[in-house]
């Protein structure tokens, strides 16, 4: 049984079929980008386990890569592989396994976002480009804000969200990738609270540019046994924050981009842009920053194609904002990727494997010629 399982899993056919399917996904995903946008296409075809075409479920990128990984690992269990003359093949397979493990780490744990810093100020937070979170912030204490944050994967209808720091429970009723507000004509339902007393939160078609989408969420607050209990709605970027008061605690509720707090801060000392001579077109940007860690500042210059790498994070010079009175703000793209080094290391391993395979088989090649 075990041997049979290894035989099926280690079949080269499985690898070839997976590779072919991967090529199909790349083609379909690339074509789909035009209609649904880069991020949505990436999520649907490459970062998914399954996707549907009509009622038909089809394997997504993650399943295909997992099959390829299983296939390569199973190959290692084959008895006839463990021979000296196949040492190169073994090393190449190990390199392939490493590449796929790195892809898995990147898929599950990596994140990317932006850090916006005005000249003279500092920041230690990264706002994710795509992922949202529901933040319930207890602002009652005069010394600090207490955040309780629920991530986007939990935004499924009917999901109950609870936390010991909260005086109430939350039940997700609806989550919209892109929403808009419409004024209510007449009176709203009795159970609606906050913004929903005056507005309907309506889902609209996703924009192909994910940055233009404004997610919305409708949820129920319960357990306060007061008139605070009811249905609330939030939309990303709303100007007036939603607040509730429960047991003498004041809570601010916000739908925001997922925030990552760093163990260090970046202070923008000076932002510089060089223009193409005689034009208003920028040639290059650079940010002179201080990397502040344990209250010790270290000067660093971030330029285009010269990012700052620190504690697993990479900060690229992405954009800038300039106000008419000369105040400048830098926009850094921040990427955290645990699997960053895997492609380099695995490529080296695979190259070594191919070299070993060639060296081991070289005498046999010469013999044949003779």
């Amino acid at each position, binding site marked *: 049984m075990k041997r049979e399982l290894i035989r099926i899993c280690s079949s080269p056919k499985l690898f070839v079929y997976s590779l072919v399917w991967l090529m199909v996904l790349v083609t379909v995903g690339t074509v789909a980008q035009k209609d649904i946008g880069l991020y949505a296409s990436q999520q649907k075809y490459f970062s998914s386990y399954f996707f549907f075409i009509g009622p038909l479920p089809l394997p997504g990128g993650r399943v295909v890569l*997992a099959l390829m*990984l299983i296939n390569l*690992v199973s190959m*290692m*269990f084959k008895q006839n592989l463990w021979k000296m003359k196949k040492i190169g093949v073994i090393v190449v397979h190990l390199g392939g*396994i490493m590449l796929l*493990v790195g892809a*898995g*780490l990147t898929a*599950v744990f990596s994140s990317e976002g*932006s850090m*916006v810093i*005005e000249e003279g100020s500092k920041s230690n937070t990264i*706002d994710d480009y795509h992922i949202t979170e529901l933040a319930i*912030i207890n*602002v009652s204490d*005069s*010394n*600090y*804000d*207490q*955040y*309780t*944050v*629920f*991530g*986007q*994967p*939990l935004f499924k209808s009917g999901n109950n*969200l609870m*936390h010991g*720091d909260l005086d109430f429970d939350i039940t997700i009723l609806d989550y919209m990738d892109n929403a808009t*507000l419409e*004024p209510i004509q007449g009176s709203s339902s009795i159970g609606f609270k906050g*913004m929903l007393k*005056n*507005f309907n939160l309506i889902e609209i078609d996703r924009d192909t*540019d994910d*940055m*233009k989408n*404004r997610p919305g969420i409708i949820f129920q607050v319960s357990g306060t046994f007061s008139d605070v209990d009811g249905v609330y709605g939030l939309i*990303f*970027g*709303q*100007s*007036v*924050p939603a*607040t509730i008061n429960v047991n003498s605690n004041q809570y*601010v509720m916000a739908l*925001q*981009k997922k925030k990552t*707090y760093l163990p260090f801060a970046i202070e923008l000392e000076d932002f510089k842009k060089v223009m193409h001579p005689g034009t*208003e077109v920028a040639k290059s940007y650079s940010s002179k920053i201080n990397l502040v860690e344990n209250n010790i500042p270290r000067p660093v210059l971030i330029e285009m194609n010269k990012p700052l790498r620190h504690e697993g994070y990479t900060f690229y010079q992405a954009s800038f*904002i*300039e*106000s*008419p*009175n000369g105040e400048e*703000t830098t*926009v850094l793209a921040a990427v955290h990727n645990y699997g960053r080094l895997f492609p380099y290391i695995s490529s080296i391993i695979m190259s070594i494997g191919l070299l070993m395979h060639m060296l081991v088989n070289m005498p046999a090649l010469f013999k044949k010629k003779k």
Partner: protein
Amino acid sequence: MKIFQTISFVLFFLLLSGCDKNRHIQSYRTPKKDFGLQLEAPQPSSKTRSSDVTNLTWELPDSWIPSTGHSMRLASFDIPFSDGVGDLSIVSLGGASGGLLANVNRWRGQVNLSPISESEILNVSTVGESKMGPFRIFKMINDVDTSNAIIAAVLPTGQKTFFIKLTTTKKGVIELQSVFEKFCASIGNSS
């Protein structure tokens, strides 16, 4: 062989860790932040609210000339500056009126600037204080095309939000910014 069984186990464990619900819930403390809670005006009755549109007051600079505007506008003014005349409009809409992000990005689109994120918007805005409460000022200037620029203020007052928008040139925004801010600060409600 054991090493490969170990690898398989580690991979299986990593796969399972992706399903942990608690890793999507976080609790932490941060230093106090201004959430703009003062922007929330007291909630008067709906009758009072409807009257604050018609009873809007402000201190008009001498050089500003009332003009006829769009039907949606509460008021319109022609504002002369050294290189032309700017167009100022005051509009009132219900509630958050689509939100700060959407409105600012709509204005940015009008001067051919690309949209920016919420955090970028808040970083480039300034806050002022009017007689009806705090407001935020946004400047939209496209350095490539300086012939169109906008300076706008958003004044939320509970169920209504007032938008004061000055459409002019880059030079106009620079020259008129100070007087624009003073005008916004003078806006009040006579009722």
